């Protein structure tokens, strides 16, 4: 589950920051920055881009809090992740990146494998850690809409209701993206001849 710190603590820090105590912002961000940064990094797959987005996010949070645009309902982390999501979407719009394939409105997808993935020499039998590493690489090859749902679900532990709210889509769309992500991952596993002994994970 998406873990929020004690809402009273967050609220107190937010109020202190608005009142002029800048250290409170640092304390607040220290609680969540690792998870927020990782979410950004896993989604954009580029350290320097993630750094830039995180910086922009930090500035936006400060401005929003100072201008009273934040409504304190005890969900600071969710609110922050929503801003991060919007910044990530802005980044991809600007980049109009071409190495990922968009998901059509009906959820149909075509996968274009990255060259590095095609060229990778994956052994038939991999040790457990290697499989996990490869699986994360396969997730990196998913269309952005599907990749984000996978990260929100499996890394941040969001419910589908929260994922739908976070990404501003219906629950059915969020569920559909998750299903297509799993189908695409399975296809990539098969195409790359990856051997995954899933019996141990039942």
């Amino acid at each position, binding site marked *: *589950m998406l873990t929020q710190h004690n809402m009273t603590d967050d609220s107190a820090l937010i109020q202190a920051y608005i009142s002029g105590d800048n250290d409170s912002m640092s304390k607040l961000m220290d609680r969540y920055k*690792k998870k927020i940064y*990782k979410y950004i990094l*896993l989604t954009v797959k580029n350290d320097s881009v993630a750094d830039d987005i995180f910086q922009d996010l930090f500035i936006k949070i400060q401005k929003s809090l100072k201008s009273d645009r934040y409504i304190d309902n005890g969900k600071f982390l969710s609110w922050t992740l929503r801003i991060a999501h919007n910044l990530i979407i802005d980044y991809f719009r600007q980049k109009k990146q071409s190495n990922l394939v968009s998901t059509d409105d009906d959820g149909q997808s075509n996968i274009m494998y990255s060259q590095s993935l095609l060229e990778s020499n994956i052994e038939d039998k991999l040790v457990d850690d290697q*499989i*996990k*590493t490869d*699986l*994360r690489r396969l*997730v990196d090859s998913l269309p952005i809409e599907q990749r984000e749902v*996978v*990260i929100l*679900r*499996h*890394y941040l*532990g969001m*419910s*589908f*209701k929260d994922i739908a709210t976070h990404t501003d889509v219906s*629950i*059915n769309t969020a*569920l*559909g993206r*998750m*299903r297509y992500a*799993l*189908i695409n*991952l*399975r296809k990539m*596993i098969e195409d790359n001849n990856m051997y*995954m002994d*899933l019996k141990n*994970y*039942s």
Partner: protein
Amino acid sequence: MENTYNSDFDDDDNELFLNNVIGDDIGLLNISRFLDRAYAEEDDV
């Protein structure tokens, strides 16, 4: 389908997941379990 619930999520959410994402395709559930493992340890990577 045995042992399909993820205790990290509430019953309604698990129900949505099983009915709308997994359906009758048990293979997708295995992929999902692997993702759980892969990203559960992401902080340590």
